[in-house]
């Protein structure tokens, strides 16, 4: 059964990768990268059970915690065009 779940996750990852490649808007890309992250969390979790040593879930936990840093950075990047405290020439976000 773990193998079936694994196959489903891999198939879903292929599809998400396809969307990431196709775009067309950059928001589609962020979205698919983000959902790819969730699938990897699950994949690593299931993989632990499949190999019989499920005590290595720390990696999944790490992704679950940190995966949205990337999303926040992207959001800030597109709204303010910088990751620091800089200010736009026109004074406000687009």
């Amino acid at each position: 059964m773990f193998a079936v779940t694994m196959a489903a996750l891999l198939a879903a990852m292929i599809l998400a990768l396809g969307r990431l490649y196709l775009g067309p808007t950059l928001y589609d890309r962020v979205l698919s990268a983000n959902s790819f992250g969730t699938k990897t969390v699950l994949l690593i979790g299931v993989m632990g059970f499949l190999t019989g040593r499920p005590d290595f879930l720390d990696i999944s936990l790490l992704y679950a915690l940190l995966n949205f840093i990337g999303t926040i950075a992207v959001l800030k990047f597109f709204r303010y065009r910088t990751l620091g405290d800089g200010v736009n020439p026109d004074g406000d976000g687009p």
Partner: protein
Amino acid sequence: MTALVTDAVSWAFLASGSFLVVVGALGLIRMPDFYTRLHAAGITDTLGADLILMGLMVQAGFSLVTVKLLLIGAFLFFTSPTSTHAIANAALTAGLNPRIADGAGAGTDSAAPEGDGK
């Protein structure tokens, strides 16, 4: 007997979770515009993920593994909707319009396709 029951329950969870994950991914690739894709990705990130984690929890029984799975579930439960919200918010403020009815007005100006689509 109990082993059989736990296996059956966890397999039911895993199967339905896998199904939702695949459906969500299909939606991600097949839906016509960004906002509908957002909706499809949401299925994977919340219910699909939680069902799979629940299936694993039933397998693990009462142990540290279950606690870790619970934590993963809890963090995903908070971070996934937050990032989805953030992306949707960013897209809307950047001027990407939802596609309405007969295919007109899919995405406009500033947030339009990103140069080379390939």
